């Protein structure tokens, strides 16, 4: 445990550049170093991951990808535990049936209850639905029937759980690393010959997407809005030109003037919320509104690790971070306006530099993720696949709602 704590501390200090991949790798080391007891191994793992996850999320709440990965790992632990349990019960069934015929009734009851328990346990992992509304809430410790099996069985099961979970987390890391390629593969379906694409700022997913279309011999033009105040659009323009794409650089304020010449807007995202809304670099809402006004499709590229199960209650306030005003103004020239010392003690000039914008779902035409292209109203489905309802609030003691 002390080892993981040190790892967590170094990670937290470097959280400014935290990526989803690093979070997943950190959690993998947490899991592999965690000692698990014989009973309820999944619970111990979940507690350990939640403990670390709480710290990670609290350190930088705006970096939603960190929270997403924590929840994905928790979901993985629950799934692996469940599949092991159902497999164990399935083996039990076989052994019970193949045993002697003396205790027929008892065997019959065991098989029925075991099947029912497995079915019920399976239903808890799925999000609640109308189908299961009337059913029993199953017993949480669904494993008591394993009393007959030996101790050797149990220890092999515990090792198997950790092993399975770590394998699944490795797959997750692999997915995160390759998400750009998987999204880029879909480029050819969306970018056609002689089209004009508009983008804002610079996003690695978008550049890979455009390069992939160029590889497939599509000829198209790109308008790049520079993305003040960081001007990352300049870097993107250079990269595109290096690849042989015809590029036009414009200011953010010129987007509305140029949008009528554009066929499609393709942008990246910082995070995708559960209602289909997008947290994107500042200025994106303007582009989305301009695109809607001129009926230009607004396509958002996002890896599935950016999909967040939370709803944006107050997105302008809670999910934004304010960056340093030095990106806007040079302090030397404006020092007299921003001086706290002189006059009444409070400067008349405030400089605010929000990093993100919220784009509501009705402005987005399509999401392209590594799992394919989807409607904004379909995103809840992916959330149900990747996350468990119990993990939405990552706290050690779950809130008892009943």
């Amino acid at each position: 445990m002390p080892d993981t704590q040190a790892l967590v501390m170094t990670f937290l200090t470097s959280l400014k550049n935290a990526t989803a991949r690093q979070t997943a790798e950190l959690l993998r080391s947490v899991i592999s170093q965690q000692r698990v007891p014989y009973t309820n191994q999944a619970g111990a793992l979940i507690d350990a991951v939640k403990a670390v996850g709480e710290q990670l999320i609290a350190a930088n709440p705006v970096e939603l990808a960190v929270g997403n990965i924590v929840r994905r790992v928790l979901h993985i632990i629950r799934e692996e535990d469940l599949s092991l349990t159902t497999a164990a019960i399935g083996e039990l069934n076989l052994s019970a049936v193949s045993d002697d015929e003396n205790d027929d009734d008892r065997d019959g009851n065991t098989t029925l209850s075991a099947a029912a328990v497995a079915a019920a346990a399976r239903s808890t992992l799925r999000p609640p639905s109308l189908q299961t509304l009337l059913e029993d809430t199953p017993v949480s410790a669904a494993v008591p029937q394993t009393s007959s099996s030996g101790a050797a069985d149990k220890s092999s099961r515990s090792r198997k759980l950790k092993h399975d979970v770590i394998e699944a987390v490795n797959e997750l890391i692999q997915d995160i690393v390759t998400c750009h390629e998987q999204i880029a593969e879909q480029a050819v379906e969306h970018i056609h010959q002689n089209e004009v694409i508009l983008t804002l700022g610079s996003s690695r997913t978008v550049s890979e997407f455009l390069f992939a279309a160029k590889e497939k011999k599509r000829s198209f033009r790109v308008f790049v809005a520079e993305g003040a105040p960081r001007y990352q659009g300049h870097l993107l323009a250079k990269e595109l030109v290096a690849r042989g794409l015809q590029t036009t650089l414009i200011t953010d304020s010129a987007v509305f003037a140029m949008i009528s010449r554009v066929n499609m807007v393709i942008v990246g995202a910082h995070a995708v919320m559960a209602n289909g809304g997008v947290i994107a670099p500042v200025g994106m809402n303007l582009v989305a509104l301009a695109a809607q006004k001129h009926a230009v499709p607004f396509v958002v590229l996002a890896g599935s690790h950016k999909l967040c199960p939370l709803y944006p209650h107050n997105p302008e306030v809670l999910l934004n971070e304010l960056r340093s005003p030095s990106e806007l103004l040079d302090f030397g020239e404006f020092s007299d306006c921003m001086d706290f010392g002189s006059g009444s003690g409070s400067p008349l000039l405030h400089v605010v530099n929000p990093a993100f914008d919220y784009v509501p779902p009705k402005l987005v035409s399509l999401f392209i993720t590594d799992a394919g292209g989807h409607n904004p109203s379909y995103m809840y489905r992916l959330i149900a696949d990747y996350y468990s309802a119990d993990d939405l609030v990552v706290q050690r003691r779950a809130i008892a709602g009943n």
Partner: protein
Amino acid sequence: MSMSAYYQTRAAHHGVVTSDWLAQSQEAATRAVVTGGQEIVDGGKSGRAFSVIDEFNNWRKQPDLAEAVAAIRALAAVIRNSEAKTMMELEIELKKASDSLKSWDTTSISLTAGCDLFMRYVTRTSALEYEDFNSARSRLIERAEKFGEISYKARKIIAMLSQDFIFDGCTILVHGFSRVVMEVLKMAAQNKKLFRVLCTEGRPDRSGLRLANELAKLDVPVKLLIDSAVAYTMDEVDMVFVGADGVVESGGIINMMGTYQIALVAHSMNKPVYVAAESYKFARLYPLDQKDMGPALRPIDFGVPIPSKVEVETSARDYTPPQYLTLLFTDLGVLTPSVVSDELIQLYL
């Protein structure tokens, strides 16, 4: 003039009634029960004193009980009183009882939805290999009784889910009296949130007055509006919270008359409209316009005599299409309107 028993009951529970309307409604109620009882005696087994409709009416009288719960309890009573020896027989009896309930009050959507949900559950349960008919039967009865708890828990879950959306200093507009919305606001008040409620009167039942009373008891600042003042006050509103009598397949809702109007005004001013509805209210209906549903009429007392030549629009409910709704808070989670049809498909197909 035919009257909707469902809206009549709601008015009796939550409305402020005048004496001659009360007399009218009581007369109509006795008429309906008599015809319903006769149906059961003629169509069902002879010599049975038990009537599922009477049972349902008994349960329905309790103001805190949801319609669907009353329906499922009535069906549980059918199982208890049935003399069937096989699952098939029991299912047929239940189907008959459920059909008679549904036809007795065609205007109540939660009643229909509750009956359908329970029938679906029975069919699925009987498909499992239970060796013993009696254990299956007792299990069905037990689950039906538990449904009341489920419904109560559902309201609590919905209240919990909505808490994040109520921020300090917000102004909430509510329409009429909805038990689920009341639970949401009660929990927010208990969590010491500072918010203000604008409450419409909700003519002709004037159920908004009842809501205002309850909120005043909780020390929540509440302001009453007449129904026509909604657009006037909409710019100071942060969000609209309504309940639902039924949630239809498109993701729209059927609710007390006036909800559509409020949703339209809110949409035009970019205010979010949140619907709090339990999941058993999801119904397999797809109205295309306001007149597409069966009429649910409720007489209006204007206080002065109206000449007989003058027609009065007496419909008690309207349909709000999904594009005017922002989010649905249900016990299945916070959903966008497009999720509703998905859930229904999973259940029924």
